[in-house]
């Protein structure tokens, strides 16, 4: 029992550290409501296939004729590029549905998690939470 009690915090700590490490390459995710999925429909303004993160600029209609620009960070070309994504995956004018983690400060931005492409494909943009 003693061994189990001693090991349990270590196991938990190791698991949480590993999950956190996998989520983002080089920075904290503290500015996002990480894990809280929200979605929006939008038109792609520009897709920046850049390090250390890709960046997706969107034009979102508010339903009353007004538009707002949104900026969503994503995983890097180093991660996405080895999992079927490319700089051509999204292009200006594409109508997409995006699942994202919002910013805590409610500005129009966040981190994109998965995207429904114009051809209907749903593409993951983050490591899965369970397993490799």
């Amino acid at each position: 029992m003693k061994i189990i009690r001693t090991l349990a915090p270590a196991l938990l700590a190791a698991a949480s550290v590993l999950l956190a490490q996998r989520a983002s390459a080089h920075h904290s995710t503290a500015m996002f409501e990480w894990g809280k999925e929200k979605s929006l429909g939008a038109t792609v303004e520009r897709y920046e296939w850049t390090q250390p993160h890709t960046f997706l600029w969107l034009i979102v209609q508010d339903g009353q004729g007004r538009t707002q620009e949104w900026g969503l960070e994503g995983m890097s070309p180093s991660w996405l590029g080895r999992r079927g994504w490319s700089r051509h995956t999204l292009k200006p004018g594409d109508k997409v549905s995006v699942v994202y983690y919002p910013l805590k400060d409610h500005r129009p931005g966040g981190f994109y998690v998965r995207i429904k492409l114009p051809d209907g494909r749903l593409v993951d943009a983050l490591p899965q939470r369970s397993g490799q």
Partner: protein
Amino acid sequence: MNRTLRFTSGLAACGAIALVSACGSQCAQSTANAAPAASAAQNPYAALAKLPDWSGVWEPTFRAGTPGQAPPAPPRLTPPYAAQYAKYLQKNRTTPGLNFVSAVASCVPPGLPQSMLQPYPIEFLFTPGRVTILIETDHLIRRIYTDGSPPPPDPDPTYQGTSVGHWEGDTLVVETSAILPDTSPLQGINGHSDKFHVTERIRLAEPDLLEIKTTRTDPAVFIEPYTTTAYYRRHRDWRIMEYVCEQNNHDALDAHGNPAFSLSHKPEE
């Protein structure tokens, strides 16, 4: 013979006509005959054939510890660092996905050993008397001298430190010191003393699985040396990608050193 080879190749660069007029066909003949004789004994590249095959690109697997065994025990830390580490673990428990806050967010490169534990791949180059590790994240380069020469007596502290290595069978043992003291010795801890020393034992655990055991020693931080194990999966068909952190970083820390997020089109980092 080497001198002859260099001499003739230099001449060849000036033009084939010069070579022919200088020594004629007899000279060209003797140079061709000399090449095999200069090989095994004198060509330092021949010794590389005995080294294990670490070619390809190695992806970190984030597999925790040795398969089938419990993860390593937590580090035993001196009081100031224990407090820092406990705070980090507590934050990670209460905020899912929270990562370590460090200058890396502002594109300052990670120091050793964190540079080896980034989410992106690494590759190895073997040349005579040296192993070079190329890290995709931030384009970091580690030069590990394996020619038996001692490290310089008083090297300047750097992000990747000063490394010497030697082979124990098929295991490369790397000893590194002179790592900048404001870098992270372990995820969750910022800073260490100038006594910080890293020992890495690198070997193939399986044909396509590289194992790196990393031991951190620093009496200011660790009550006893702390070892973790990381695994990397081989991808022979991958290429290392360009990674310039300043290209489009929206995540530089704010003026108080806290995480931030810029929605500016041209972030000022």
